[in-house]
């Protein structure tokens, strides 16, 4: 099981690949929409790539609750556990 730092690093890579944002900008407290300017289509791509990378399921109805990077990291950590 990956720890939260590893999940954050992996998620940052996915975000970087999709949006071109530097990985250092992807921090736990950052909002996907407000701070990182990620639209809903990019968000879905990130979610699907995260599912694949971490071997978890992130249901569509859950995605709207993942407003910050930290929310996503927590969700993935719990889902993995």
């Amino acid at each position, binding site marked *: 099981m990956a720890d939260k730092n590893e999940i954050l690093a992996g998620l940052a890579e996915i975000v970087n690949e999709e949006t071109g944002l530097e990985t250092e900008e992807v921090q736990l407290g950052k909002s996907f929409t407000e701070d990182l300017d990620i639209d809903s289509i990019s968000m879905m*791509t990130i979610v699907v790539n995260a*599912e694949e990378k971490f071997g978890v399921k992130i249901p569509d109805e859950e995605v709207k609750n993942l407003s910050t990077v930290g929310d996503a990291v927590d969700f993935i950590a719990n889902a993995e556990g």
Partner: protein
Amino acid sequence: MTRRLVITGLGATTPLGGDVPTLWQNALAGTPGAKTLDYDWVEEYSLPVSFAAEAAVAPSEVLSRPETRRMDRSTQLGMVASREAWADAGLAEADVDGDRLGVSFATGIGGVWTLLDSWDTLRERGPRRVMPMTVPMLMPNGAAGAISLDLGARAGARTAVSACASGTEALDVAIRMIREGEADIVMAGGTEAAIHPLPLAAFSSMQALSRRNDDPAAASRPYDVDRDGFVMGEGAGALVIESEEHAKARGARIYAELAGAGVSSDAHHITAPDPEALGATRALNRALESAGAEVAEVTHVNAHATSTPVGDKPEYAALRSAFGDHLESVCVSATKSQTGHLLGAAGAVESVLTTLALHERRAPVTINLENQDPDLPLDVVTGTPRELPAGDQVAVCNSFGFGGHNSVVAFRTV
């Protein structure tokens, strides 16, 4: 009073080079763009044709990674050409009114790689893995939309889809947008990226492609008695079309006048050209009429000339019918001999070449013409570029597409 339109910027990414200067240099030198394809899928599917004319510079080398991920290859190529044309027109630093800026960007097929890759993903990995950008990437208006976003063009973004006539028809659309007063500037062009096993198999299946697998460089040979089909190419061409008053007010460099265009449809057969070429002749006549040009003013033709046994003849019939005896005084360049056939981008790239031919007064060469078909007695430019005469003159660029689409654009020196 009809507004005069001028061409102030050019862009292209093609098998002959990743930009216009390289394209032009190679088009004058006579450089074959076709090569053997180095992909596993050629052998995997036992494709009967194992070569094509790929873009010389991959768009991923020019665009950022996120751009590449969110655009089909066809949109990527169009974006590269559009940005070059925009900078070339001196508009990158200009204060442009986006409400008066339009886009007319064509394609023959659209995002065929995205469509078929997504289908593979669905079948192999399920619907969850089908990426949410799939639809905006595969739609044929993908390039027009992405370019309008890139430039902040808000006067409309249109997409002519008329198979291999698309790139030329995009200029007809641009002319209408400016003459109707919808826009002062239009980014016009065409793009195609269909060197994929399915289109290769499908065009092979209809016997349209050359099978000269042992000598790709010699495969595209318009007007030659040994021509056996076209060579699939990919790339994009872009032209900044501007009303003359707008271009002059900002002191823009003007390559040529985009004098007029003519579009017609054969209503003869879904793929075969009308042997009497009535539709193609009407398009030629309309283009000259729209340009206010006399036949005697025409000095140069960039021909459609795809190198198929059946296709090159009706175009000759149309040229003979429209120009009569004056055809003897017209030099013809069949640049698909070098670039291959860029399908929906062909007319755009060839319009770039026609514009430069007038601007530099030099017609590019046709390669691989060893034994000219005696039924096609045209004055074809071979060997070295042909000097065009001094003085005011007109050149035309022809494109014809499956569906019976005929599209001709007329350019005039300035």
